[in-house]
């Protein structure tokens, strides 16, 4: 996928998948899409904001801050499904460091702190070199 591009696909009648290059500028696109999906639930705008923040955060962690990787690293995929719950899976090849680089001056936040604090149902799995962040919310 060329740098700066995004694609979407509807894999099932209840779901949508967005794939973006690892360009930090594209994380906002994912936030816009997931907010639109969250607005299809009966929940209020506070819920939409929570989902937008959580999925944006997960996506940003897997995209990383370095746009130069956009052309070489694989895409980050975000799958959203409206079933009994709103289920979102963010996945990408590679791993995310559990701690910040001590030499960085963008620091001080444990990467998972915000996600764990925001989402009751949140899990991380790593399999075959792919990191997957799964989260879900009740619809009512």
């Amino acid at each position, binding site marked *: 996928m060329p740098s700066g591009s995004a694609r979407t696909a509807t894999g099932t009648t209840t779901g949508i998948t967005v794939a973006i290059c690892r360009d*930090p*500028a594209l*994380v*906002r696109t994912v*936030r816009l899409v997931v907010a639109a999906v969250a607005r299809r639930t009966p929940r209020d705008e*506070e819920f939409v*904001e929570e989902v*937008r*923040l959580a999925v*944006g*955060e997960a996506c*940003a962690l897997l*995209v*990383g*801050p370095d746009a130069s990787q956009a052309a070489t690293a694989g895409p980050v995929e975000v799958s959203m499904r409206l079933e009994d719950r709103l289920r979102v899976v963010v996945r990408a090849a590679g791993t995310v460091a559990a701690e*910040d680089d001590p030499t*960085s*001056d*963008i*620091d*001080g*936040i444990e*990467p998972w*702190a*915000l996600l764990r*604090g*925001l989402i009751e149902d949140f899990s991380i799995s790593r399999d075959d070199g792919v990191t997957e962040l799964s989260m879900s919310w009740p619809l009512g």
Partner: protein
Amino acid sequence: MDLSLETRQEDGHTIIEVGGEIDVYTAPKLRDKITELVSNGEYHLVIDMEKVDFLDSTGLGVLVGGLKKVRAHDGSMRLICNQERLLKIFRITGLAKVFAIHGSQADALAER
């Protein structure tokens, strides 16, 4: 929406009015602004977040980095924020206890 940054001096402090979204893409611009101000000897900063629509952990990290920078010069960093959705992020991450968060510029500048 991109990130907007406007700075001005008031009562011995440098106020940075931030607007838009502070995320993994835009946070480096805020970091660079804080670094520039500290390099110019401006160690008492007030970050006005009234017009911030979105804040993620990268943005929080920039604020923490900025706080460390000014404290290294015996300076201060105060935040202005009264949006519940942003305050919630500070509470979840424990940073509500780290930053002096005020509801208005007048309150932030009144603190001694």
